[in-house]
């Protein structure tokens, strides 16, 4: 099979995609790297000058940057495990035989949150979480809980972002994991069923190893998306109250698009990109060893 594939053929298949991504991905990125070495503010272009790594030094010593990073990490470490746990639960339920029609419907409804525009989710969150006219507080009222000030209180706003992040992304995680579960050969599941009734044991010892590729995919995607998370908190809380929901992408957007400090924003973004790539490499290295 490998015998007769010429370089030209390989190039013909890969060339266009590589060229396209170099064009739209790499070129602007290089420009961003170049700008990150400058003191460059859109509203003060007269004062533009080359400053070397000064922006990077500034970013790395800026507590605001690290606080935003910390917030982003907190969000990640709270919401992704919940997404994975819930996603797994949903995937397992959907993977079980029986109630077919019901399950098809459920699978379809999983598409809804995924398909909802991220910016719209933030707006919807505002409407539903509002302390006065929000339906969530009304429902909490039905079970005897006093209205919660979701948007105006720093902790609650953060919780609000987590809730909506979970709402939006759990279905995606569930679908990926469901696909992963479908790669477990049925006999292997049955072999395990002969040993135990416990769903949990079957999951833990037999299905989980097959899910590792899916889990890594989920981790990679969720890490990237959490670091990129902008639309939803932006439309929901604008990073507030205070800085409670100022995640890293919200911060960078603020520096770049509102303070117009492109040099600084580029430096921040590039540090963030480096971090993401590092994490993705790490996941692949670390988890894939277990499978092979």
């Amino acid at each position, binding site marked *: 099979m490998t015998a007769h*594939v010429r370089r030209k053929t390989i190039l013909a298949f890969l060339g266009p995609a590589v060229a396209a991504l170099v064009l739209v991905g790499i070129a602007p990125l290089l420009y961003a790297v170049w700008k990150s070495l400058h003191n460059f503010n859109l509203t003060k272009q007269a004062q533009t000058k080359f400053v070397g790594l000064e922006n990077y030094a500034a970013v790395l010593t800026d507590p605001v940057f690290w606080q935003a990073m910390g917030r982003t990490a907190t969000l990640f470490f709270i919401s992704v495990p919940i997404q994975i746990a819930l996603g797994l639960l949903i995937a397992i339920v959907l993977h079980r035989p029986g109630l077919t029609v019901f399950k098809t419907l459920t699978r379809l409804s999983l598409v809804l949150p995924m398909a*909802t525009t991220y910016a719209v989710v933030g707006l919807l969150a505002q409407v539903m979480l509002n302390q006065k006219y929000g339906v969530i507080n009304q429902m909490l009222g039905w079970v005897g809980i006093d209205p919660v000030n979701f948007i105006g209180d720093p902790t609650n706003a953060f919780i609000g972002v987590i809730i909506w992040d979970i*709402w939006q992304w759990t279905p995606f995680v569930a679908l990926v994991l469901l696909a992963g579960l479908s790669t477990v050969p049925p006999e292997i599941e049955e072999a395990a069923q002969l040993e135990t009734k416990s769903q949990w044991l079957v999951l833990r010892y037999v299905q989980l190893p097959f899910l590792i590729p899916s889990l890594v995919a989920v981790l990679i995607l969720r890490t990237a998306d959490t670091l990129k998370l902008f639309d939803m908190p932006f439309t929901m809380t604008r990073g507030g109250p205070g800085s409670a929901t100022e995640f890293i992408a919200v911060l960078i957007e603020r520096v770049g698009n509102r303070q117009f400090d492109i040099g600084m924003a580029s430096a921040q973004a590039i540090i963030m990109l480096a971090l993401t790539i590092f994490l993705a490499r790490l996941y692949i290295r670390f988890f894939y060893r277990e499978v092979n």
Partner: protein
Amino acid sequence: MAAPVQRRALWAEGLLLVAICAFCIFPFYWMVTTSLKTQVVALESPPVWVFTPTLANYWEVLFEDKVGVSLINSIIVAVCTTTLAVVLGTPAAYALARFEFRGKQDLWFWFITNRFVSPVVLAFPVFLISRELGLRDTHLALILMYLTFTLPIVIWICTDQFRSIPRELDEAALLEGASQWRIFRSICLPLAMPGVAVSSILSFIFSWNELLFAYILAPKAAKTAPAMAVTFMEGYDVPYGKIMATSTLIVIPVLIFALIASKHLVRGLTMGAVK
């Protein structure tokens, strides 16, 4: 499987399914109903569940606020970028799945890496470049930029799908004198349909919903629907009905697209072949 399907277990499972559905659907339901409320009803405290619906919001956003135009822009951009991503991405995925060459792993990883680049990084450089090229506020600028995240998704998912197709099919076709391109087009691509479908849905969803590039690169003529939705938010009053009507209009095309292809959704999402 699981022989003694006890009634109680079934009930529990059914309830769980209902809960999952409710969890997924309820916000959407609220969005749709809010879009049918007038501003006063929408801001009623406590919120009302039963009210006289009105289509006024839809009327207004569609015919007065150019949401219709922005929807068309969105469709043009999302369809084109998805098509382009599939056209460029599937051959690349095929090459990654089938051919042996040096640096394959790194190339794969580089493709995927583009998915990590935040639009915040690229938006401004692209803004300047697109102005140089006269692409500002054109669909093309958005279509190209959206490739940065649609192409990786297509490549990721499809590489995996191509790998799951038995090599013997390629070999059989090779013996019959088919060129690599022919094998790709006539044999493997049709068989990788679940992957192509899923990556198309995801590409469509991601590009349809994108906001940052959209509002920086397409402020006017090419303005897309999500950018339109947040426009309303920043008026001095927040017209929830209009926003939710716009949101509903935005979500519906994606939903239709996703539901059509949902048959493939699970089969195509086995993103396992990361090596």
